[in-house]
């Protein structure tokens, strides 16, 4: 297959491909001469795109510049972050609350930028948590996690957080089907077929971005893997790939790979909305957390909700349709016109491309091939536009360049393949280093891709960089796709294990009203200290509240006495600075949580329970001025029952003369 293809390509590519095939483990040499120039962004100059990359098992989202591959920021989302205090400060702890209590870690797989009319709009970024099912929304003015909603009746929130073209909904499909939350879950595991269900959640997104689960669809118990919304003509539909339609509950590697075809489930969500209006939804009791960040109080709030609206796919027959798709499909991607739906069967030797128009006709004319657990199965050929023959091994994901081309990653044959959507002909292929998973083209799953760069996020790194022992960073590669042939221009290591990523033109984000600091006059934190005059220490039983300020370069107060063993001390530190990039840190000896990193105008709280009698220094951890090393203070801790009075001061507790 590879040789045939090579004959048909230009000599220059032949040379490169021959070289790499005879020496596959050291392939840096396929880079051509002007690659460095294409990836070079001069010092002090900005990148052309922001790249929002999922962190995988780090639980966070990292932000890179393209084409330089420079790391701009890591935004804490689903995992605690001691360097910023996220998940450790009293204000941020509620963000990680769930129906299972406080969860300090998750597995973050996919990111999705908000869209208007099918185009990336630069307002928010959505991120999924795979392990304890949740969706987060990041505000791209502050690059902070603004909201997290938990998904009931779900496990392994994998086919998420994909959105409809006006960000009406962000969806979530369960990868691991499980008994529903309100059913008795204490059942034998081998009753999967009877007791396990797959739930698809449609989360409504409000004008200010606020998320609310509008409804869930109860579907057969299978593994829902990935999804994408219809767009343009197919707006109103959502497509979910599903595997394990064998409904195996053990040794899935073998038992979920039996059938030649699994399904892409097409969901008519406008129809679902009609059924809800007609009162066909059932209110089902459950329990899930909804956490929101308030930018005025600099504090998160967590609410537990107790009910969700469920529609049955079996009973309401014209919401869901199964499209047969070979074999154990993973990626489920819709082209910019909304006409073509690409299913990538991990174990298939071809890529099926479905036609939305043909699907609609097939449904209209009832070209069905029976039912799957009560859901009509559309005839494969009736919905099929065509198949890309022998594209490579192990197709996973597809993105689009807006010029009629699709780019699919192949894990097993470790390559990206460019093909023509209409003619289904393979146009080009490039090796990746090694075993690519997801890929990203800026706007590549929207109606308006910016088909200039393609980033491959690889699953295996091996010898790509200097060795760092058994554990290695993941590798990513940037390709220039502006010409007919894809050209490798840069390698860069990444944080965690990236899965999907999104990218947007830099101007769209940096001109969206980026916040540089929080206005101190708008600070409504209940423990804010607005000016050093208000600095104080208040005892209320065993609770001590320290109202503290920081400014270059001292804390007020910086001498505190009269704390006793058994007290719980809350340091509420307000950063009085009002300029960009002047955070102050706060750390105290023996704290069993983390530090605080306080942005200008913000108030953050660190809880500290002293365990020993003595003097405990605290200091600023973020180098803030020439006198940063002087930015420190002391807390005196006395035994329980001590008569040392509670005092606090700055600049007055002068050295004792005796």
């Amino acid at each position, binding site marked *: 297959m590879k040789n045939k293809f090579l004959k048909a390509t230009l000599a220059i590519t032949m040379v490169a491909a021959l070289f790499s095939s005879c020496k596959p483990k050291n392939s840096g040499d396929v880079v051509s001469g002007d690659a460095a120039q294409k990836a070079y962004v001069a010092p002090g*100059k900005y990148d052309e795109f922001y790249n929002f990359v999922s962190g995988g098992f780090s639980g966070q989202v990292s932000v890179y510049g393209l084409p330089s591959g420079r790391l701009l920021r890591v935004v804490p989302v689903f995992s605690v972050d001691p360097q910023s205090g996220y998940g450790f400060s009293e204000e941020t702890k509620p963000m990680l609350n769930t129906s299972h209590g406080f969860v300090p870690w998750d597995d973050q797989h996919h990111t999705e930028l908000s869209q208007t009319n099918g185009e990336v709009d630069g307002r928010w970024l959505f991120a999924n948590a795979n392990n304890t099912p949740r969706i987060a929304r990041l505000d791209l003015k502050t690059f902070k996690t603004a909201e997290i909603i938990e998904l009931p009746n779900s496990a392994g929130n994998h086919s998420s957080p994909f959105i409809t073209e006006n960000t009406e909904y962000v969806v979530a499909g369960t990868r691991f089907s499980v008994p529903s939350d309100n059913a008795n879950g204490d059942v034998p595991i081998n009753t999967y077929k009877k007791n396990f269900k797959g739930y698809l959640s449609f989360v409504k997104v409000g004008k200010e971005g606020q998320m609310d689960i509008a409804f869930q669809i109860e579907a057969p118990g299978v593994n829902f893997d990935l999804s994408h919304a219809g767009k343009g003509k197919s707006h109103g539909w959502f497509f979910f790939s599903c595997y394990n339609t064998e409904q195996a509950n053990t040794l899935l590697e073998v038992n979920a790979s039996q059938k030649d075809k699994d399904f892409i489930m097409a969901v008519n969500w406008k129809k679902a909305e009609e059924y809800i209006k007609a009162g066909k939804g059932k209110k089902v009791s459950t329990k899930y957390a909804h956490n929101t960040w308030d930018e005025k109080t600099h504090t998160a709030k967590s609410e537990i909700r107790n009910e969700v609206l469920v529609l049955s796919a079996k009973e309401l027959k014209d919401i869901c349709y199964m499209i047969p798709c070979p074999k154990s499909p993973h990626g489920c991607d819709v082209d910019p016109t909304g006409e073509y739906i690409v299913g990538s069967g991990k174990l298939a030797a071809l890529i099926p491309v479905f036609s939305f128009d043909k699907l609609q006709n097939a449904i209209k004319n009832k070209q069905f091939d029976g039912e799957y657990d009560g859901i009509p199965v559309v005839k494969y050929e009736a919905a099929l536009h065509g198949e890309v023959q022998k594209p490579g091994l192990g197709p996973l994901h597809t993105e689009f360049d807006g010029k009629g081309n699709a780019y699919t990653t192949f894990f097993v044959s470790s390559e990206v393949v460019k093909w023509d959507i209409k003619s289904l002909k393979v146009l080009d292929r490039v090796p990746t280093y090694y075993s690519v998973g997801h890929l990203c083209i800026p706007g590549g799953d929207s109606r308006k891709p910016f088909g200039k760069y393609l980033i491959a996020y690889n699953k295996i790194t091996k010898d790509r960089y200097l060795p760092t022992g058994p554990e290695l960073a993941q590798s990513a590669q940037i390709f220039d796709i502006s010409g007919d042939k894809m050209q490798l221009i840069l390698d860069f290591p990444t944080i965690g294990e990236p899965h999907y990523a999104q990218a947007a033109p830099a101007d769209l984000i940096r001109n969206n009203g980026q916040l540089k600091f929080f206005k*101190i006059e708008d600070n409504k934190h209940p423990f804010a200290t*607005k000016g050093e005059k208000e600095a104080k220490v208040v005892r209320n039983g065993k609770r001590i509240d320290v109202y503290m300020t920081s400014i*270059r370069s001292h804390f007020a107060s910086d001498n505190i006495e009269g704390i006793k063993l058994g007290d719980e001390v809350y340091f509420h530190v307000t950063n009085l600075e009002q*300029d960009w990039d002047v955070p102050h840190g706060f750390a105290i000896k023996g704290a069993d949580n983390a530090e605080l990193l306080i942005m200008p105008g913000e108030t953050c709280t660190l809880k500290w329970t002293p365990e020993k009698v003595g003097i405990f220094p605290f200091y600023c951890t973020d180098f803030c001025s020439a006198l940063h090393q002087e930015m420190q203070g002391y807390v005196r801790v006395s035994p329980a029952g001590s008569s040392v009075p509670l005092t606090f001061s700055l600049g007055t507790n002068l050295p004792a003369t005796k």
Partner: protein
Amino acid sequence: MYKLSLFIVALALFSSCGKKENATEDFSTGGAATEKTTDPSTYDPNRGLGKYSTVELGAQLDAAMAGEGEKIQSVKCSACHKLTDEKLVGPGWKGVTSRNKPEWIMNFITNPDPMIDKDPKVQAMLELCMVRMPNQSLSDTDARNVLEFMRKNDGVK
């Protein structure tokens, strides 16, 4: 392997001389802020650098404005400046309105960074204090009210 190396050399040569028309365009139109280069001889040490050329002061104190200014002072200024002539982090405020023109004060408190780089008085002060005065993001009204409070502190009735 030797032949292959030749190929690679040829490949590199080909692509480096054959792709000129595809040279990367400069997308970084908006790079990081570059320092504005102004001729030091045009710097007016009486006025400072900023949006204010002249600031009209009333013959008498506007007590209401001074009151507003004091509120701002307590949140945004008092951590570093005493109202006496004693230095804390920065210099004390006593006499500040007689040492400086009102437009200089208005420019400095709304636009400190460029003035720290240019102004001889401020540079001398920086050597003493070692801390660059932060931009505390004062609005025009805030700044004017703070100036009125400084006047009050200097004894204007």
